[in-house]
């Protein structure tokens, strides 16, 4: 497979972020923060009216995108900047583009957007081929 600078990475989508999955992530992360589990707490804190997805789960969607877009590639480095929250029920699309090509490795910009155009993660990744 050949890659060129500017090439868009095949997207990875989540149709609707699951509140039940947030309960699973609370276990994975050993983190019972109620903003991920209890709508009443989210409302009381003035953070919205839906539970908020854990940030690392959002990073996992970006990783899934990289795996799907660059088959056989291995993540060497990645950086994720958390720009906004993801809420239960959000439709997500992870994507990116190749910014540099070198022997045996690619550099990419990455992003995760909610409900069309709301940026929630922006980042970079270095992939070893």
């Amino acid at each position, binding site marked *: 497979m050949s890659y060129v600078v500017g090439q868009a990475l095949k997207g990875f989508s989540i149709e609707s972020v*699951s509140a039940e999955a947030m309960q699973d992530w609370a276990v*994975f992360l050993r983190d019972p923060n109620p*903003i991920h589990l209890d709508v009443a707490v989210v409302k009381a804190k003035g953070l919205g009216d839906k539970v908020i997805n854990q940030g690392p789960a959002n*990073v996992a969607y970006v990783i*899934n995108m990289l795996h799907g877009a660059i088959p056989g590639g291995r*993540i060497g480095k990645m*950086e*994720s900047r958390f720009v906004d929250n993801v809420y239960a029920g959000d439709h997500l699309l992870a994507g990116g583009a190749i910014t540099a090509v070198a022997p045996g490795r690619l550099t990419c910009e990455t992003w995760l957007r909610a409900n069309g155009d709301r940026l929630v993660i922006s980042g970079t990744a270095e992939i070893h081929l």
Partner: protein
Amino acid sequence: MSATDLPPPPDVAGVCLDGTETYVITAAENAALCASTCVAPAGDGTAHPVYYYIATQVAMGKTIAGVCDVCAFNVEDGPMMGSSGAEFFGPLLLDTPYRVRGTILGLVRKRSRKLGVMDVLTYRLSLHDESDAAVLQTENVWVLPRGELA
């Protein structure tokens, strides 16, 4: 924006975050995590790479609440993840005991138009296998809003 008129944040640089327990990514939990993100497990004995964050965070020497406490910040006041970076030196393997080493790099007090006064916490963690080889290193940045200083 200048923060020179603000009291300095606690001096936490150098605080040790070494873990005391090993962390094992089980095949069952990896499968559950992969299912929760709508993909299948790799099937080659490697874990989902997002375990770079989970393994280091869970097995470091303090909880997030504990780290906030060191920074004189109440975790109930809502710490926010600013960024997370990772560098992988090898694959993350299932059913393999790992240990965490880490340290707080710094706590910087700033003014933000959006959040008012905040402290920016940066810490670095690394994950080591039984031979003490580092398999990855991660650096996380958390934003601690300091509404009381606004």
